[in-house]
């Protein structure tokens, strides 16, 4: 196990390094912050002065090392616009994003596991076909449009829920539903196929023959074995969930980190953009690593491969 942990840890570190290189190249080589910061009528000398102040005149490898050092010491630079430290700006917004992500994930699980299990139990029936159709339709649905339609129906026509913002639990309902739509199809299909496989196994037949009730059969015997792959997929889909927060926060003006990032991208506020990109990417790496380790802990076949 220790060897496996070390190997995965090293891999994760290399991936983080690669992420920092790509981010650096994209923002510091492809774009020129100095050009953006100076007013149109600025002279060439002014631009040069600013470039020197920002350290943009140094050779690229040196600039990369400074950039990397900044990441390691938590110094991500200051926002071009508000002049606040970029890290603080992003960290302030993180709780809202986490709240949304957890609500969306929870909702997706609460809907997908029962629906997927039922589809597996009533395989081939109208119910099964209905949930499959829902999964296919969900995958083709542009989530930002779904969000807008939810607003039109539930906020404008029915006046049940608020349009945007984050002032009360009611504000969370529509964004969470929109975010859940990113994971729902995948989780529903997975639960269905897992349950079909498990329900065909000998120990389920034995339990059934012993007269175990349907509810106990599903919850005590079948789901228990289905949740390992479900946890794995949730971990691996964490990036998709974060991608979903970008769409969701934009549509509902949710005051989270992703919303901040989209605004910073529009304004070409590089320090804020790179902070969000790096933090999100690193957290995806960490979650994937943890998922792998948990799975290896639970299932010895993985680490002995």
């Amino acid at each position, binding site marked *: 196990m220790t060897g496996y942990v070390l190997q995965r840890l090293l891999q994760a570190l290399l991936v983080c390094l690669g992420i920092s290189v790509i981010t650096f190249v*994209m923002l510091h080589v492809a774009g020129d912050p100095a050009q953006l910061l100076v007013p149109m009528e600025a002279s060439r000398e002014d631009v040069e002065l600013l470039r020197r102040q920002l350290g943009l005149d140094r050779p690229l490898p040196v600039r990369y090392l400074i950039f990397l050092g900044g990441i390691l010491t938590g110094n991500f630079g200051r926002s071009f616009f508000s002049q606040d430290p970029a890290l603080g700006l992003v960290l302030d917004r993180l709780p809202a994003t986490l709240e949304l992500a957890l609500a969306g994930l929870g909702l997706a699980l609460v809907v997908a596991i029962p629906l997927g299990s039922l589809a597996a139990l009533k395989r081939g029936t109208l119910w099964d076909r209905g949930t499959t159709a829902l999964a296919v339709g969900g995958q083709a649905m542009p989530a930002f449009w779904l969000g807008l339609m939810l607003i039109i129906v539930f906020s404008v026509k029915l006046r049940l829920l608020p349009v945007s913002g984050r002032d009360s639990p009611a504000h969370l309902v529509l964004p969470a539903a929109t975010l859940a739509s990113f994971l729902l199809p995948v989780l529903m299909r997975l639960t269905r196929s897992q349950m079909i496989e498990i329900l065909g196994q000998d120990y389920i037949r034995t339990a059934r023959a012993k007269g175990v009730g349907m509810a106990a059969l599903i919850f005590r015997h079948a789901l228990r074995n289905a949740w390992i792959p479900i946890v794995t997929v949730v971990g691996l889909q964490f990036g998709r969930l974060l991608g979903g927060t970008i769409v969701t926060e934009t549509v509902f003006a949710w005051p989270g980190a992703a919303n901040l990032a989209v605004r910073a991208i529009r304004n070409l506020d590089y320090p804020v953009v790179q902070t969000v990109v790096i933090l999100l990417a690193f957290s995806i790496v960490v979650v994937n690593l943890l998922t792998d380790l948990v799975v290896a802990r639970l299932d010895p076949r993985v680490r002995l491969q």
Partner: protein
Amino acid sequence: MQASAGRPMPRVSDRGAARWIRLAWQLRVPICGALLTGVMVVAALGAPYLAPHDPLQQEITARLRPPAWMEGGSPTHLLGTDALGRDLLSRIVYGARVSLTAGVLAVVVSGIIGVGLGLLGGYFGGRADAVVNGAVSIMMAFPFMLLALTAIAVAGPSFRNIVIVLGVTTWPIYTRVVRAETLVIREREFVLAARALGGGAGRIMLRHILPNLASTLLVLGSLEVARMIILESFLSFLGLGVPPPTPSWGGMLGEGRIHMLSKWWIATFPGLAIFLATLGITFVGDGLRDLLDPRLKDSLLGREAAGQG
């Protein structure tokens, strides 16, 4: 080949029309998909002949008109007009051009990158494979949407840049599939034979391994076109896509959003177009998988058997 045995064989007792109807019923989902996709292709190709109005023509006296069937609507603007008095239906018909071409071209770009890297990693193994694998891991960990948004913002929004950015950020899915398959195929007899006969690595990869991946890639590519259309429309929705006034479905959604609270139709119809287009293409992709992937023959035959019993 194993695939030839996989066709659903019509029963002998079936005759003429009954057989065709049964086949059509079995293939109802891909047929619906093909119809939806066909409508989109026809709209894109024939936009100048099909659209009732010039999509850019602004009619100041007819701003924010509701659809024809609502009060205040008129048959001249079937789906109503936007804030500048432009005909929504005409803009949706023209918008098919942007979505379809961006989707297909982005898949071509990402497919070339992804398949190329997958072949290299899978065929050569060792260090080349480690590099390819590392690149895939890095790309998979990136918050893809932020990467694409940032790249567009830096490069400037334009049709060409969208295709390039979508292509460059979505290739890992092909690499993973191609690499895994290549690892298996390179050990097969016909590849070993080609190598023994002195075939070069490039020739073996392109002439012997790639054709074996064609059906898998066709299915994957068609499903990816649907995903690219959604991504392109989201970029346009944020104003980071095809610049106005070119009509694009995502851009129309973004403009319609401002008036969403009172004029629901401006944001609803372009989104419906995106949904139907991606649904149609997904159905076609699923249908292709059912036809080309031999694993499915079992379930198709299984359904036949159940029907007989």
